[in-house]
């Protein structure tokens, strides 16, 4: 590959070995290698715009006992009545911004440091590389050896925080078995939406590579830990579908939020089964 065939990046490319085969094209791939990173880019950008808008909107996040996953747990006094879990508002009244901003760093951090999403955004956003055997445009590459990308090693901490959120969002789904007046024994489409969202988030979290490591991957002797080995085996099966769960749970969160928002702003009423 000739050095002058790499598109100019932020820094001048270091010279490749002069002994490499001199092939001018950046890639000779004839398939649509650009399609996958392009779709990833479009979907993630759309989600970022939607999530940013909803996080700052500070409205339409609670109705009929349903709370949006973007705002749960709602930890400020400014939360709409009944939306704070058990009335727990440790941030009090001094927090004047949207309460979603207090908590979104955790799910955001979990996905930003996720081993699957790293692949997705390194390819789609940073083009490092855009696709396999397609030259990247950057002159220099240090990967995750230094700040800020070395922070991706904190993935397990966001995973642990994510588990707490999953418990809370599951409880939100259980609370949705109440009607708007707070009486138990009722069920609506919103109940199914919140429970489906929580289920997808559990699948995404439990299929995580850090989970796989924590539950047993870090061991050298599976034979000494039969229960953890069994757990590792189960998580490994889920881990094969981590990419699928990553996407589906992302859509699930957005759709659950959109459902609550549409109910809250009166676009339609939450249909009840009983």
């Amino acid at each position, binding site marked *: 590959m000739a050095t002058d065939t790499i598109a100019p990046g932020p820094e001048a490319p270091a010279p490749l070995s002069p002994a*490499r085969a*001199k092939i001018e094209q950046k890639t000779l791939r004839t398939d649509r290698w650009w399609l996958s990173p392009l779709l990833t880019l479009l979907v993630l950008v759309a989600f970022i715009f939607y999530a940013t808008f909803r996080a700052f909107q500070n409205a339409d996040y609670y109705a009929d006992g349903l709370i949006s996953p973007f705002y749960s747990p709602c930890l400020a006094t400014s939360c709409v009545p009944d939306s704070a879990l058990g009335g727990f508002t440790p941030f009090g009244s001094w927090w004047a911004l949207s309460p979603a901003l207090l908590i979104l760093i955790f799910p955001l951090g979990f996905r930003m440091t996720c081993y699957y999403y790293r692949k997705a955004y390194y390819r789609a956003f940073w083009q490092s590389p855009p696709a*396999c055997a397609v030259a990247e445009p950057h002159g220099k590459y240090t990967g995750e050896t230094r700040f800020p990308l070395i922070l991706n090693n*904190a993935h397990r901490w966001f995973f642990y925080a994510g588990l707490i959120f999953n418990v809370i969002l599951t409880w939100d789904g259980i609370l949705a078995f109440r009607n708007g007046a707070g009486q138990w024994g009722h069920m609506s489409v919103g109940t199914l939406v919140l429970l489906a969202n929580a289920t997808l988030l559990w699948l995404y979290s439990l299929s995580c*590579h850090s989970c796989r490591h924590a539950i047993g991957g*870090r061991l050298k002797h599976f034979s000494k830990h039969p229960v953890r080995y069994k757990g590792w085996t189960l998580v490994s099966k889920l881990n094969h579908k981590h990419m699928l769960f990553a996407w589906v749970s992302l859509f699930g969160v957005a759709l659950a939020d959109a459902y609550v928002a549409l109910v809250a702003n009166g676009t339609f009423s939450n249909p009840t089964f009983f």
Partner: protein
Amino acid sequence: MGYKGKFKVWRGDASGGDLTDFEVEVNEGEVVLDVIHRLQATQAPDMACRWNCKAGKCGSCSAEINGKPRLMCMTRMSTFEEDETVTVTPLRTFPVIKDLVTDVGFNYTKGREVKSFTPPADLKPGEYRMQQIDVERSQEFRKCIECFLCQNTCHVVRDHEENKVAFAGPRYLMRVAELDMHPLDTADRKNAAQEEHGLGYCNITKCCTEVCPEHIHITDNALIPMKERVVDKKYDPLVWLGSKIRRRSSSDA
């Protein structure tokens, strides 16, 4: 039924070269390596290519076919349209010797840099005792045929010659992971992976896994678990504290 296939094959050496057009007979059931051999036999007797087993097990005939790193012997001609021009070039990451043959010595250098299996000092060969479930994880990595397609595809060295010093590449980071998972290995592989073999350069974009002809899950089963083990050792204060309190290293369990 045979047909006349259109090929572009890179011909040249370190001083320069170019894609050369060929039209050559292609028969049913053939692979790209068959066609390259027919070119040698009928049109270009001095065309260099490396091959041995023709069965996808020796890892010799690695090349880039229509831009994708593949084994020539495992790439069926039936996967191409009859009117499609098939481009065959040498591996881009390594110095070319002649035509489709490259010098893959970089990989052997990196292989030698990995400290060999280190059993406990008081254990002699013949005294090793292990249970199957303790070794089966790393047995997947032993399927590697050292075709070096993963090494060639990894952008860390493919696009950045300067990283060849610091980065061992997926094949040898997988070797480090294999040894770290070995129930009898006692060497410190975690610090070595990060500081000597450049694991931090890997940004897990999975190209090594995509091109592996043995379908080894290099990223999911070797590189990411190794990254997590490095986090245990270098970036997780809780694991560090636990290892101090319980007086055992995180890898002993």
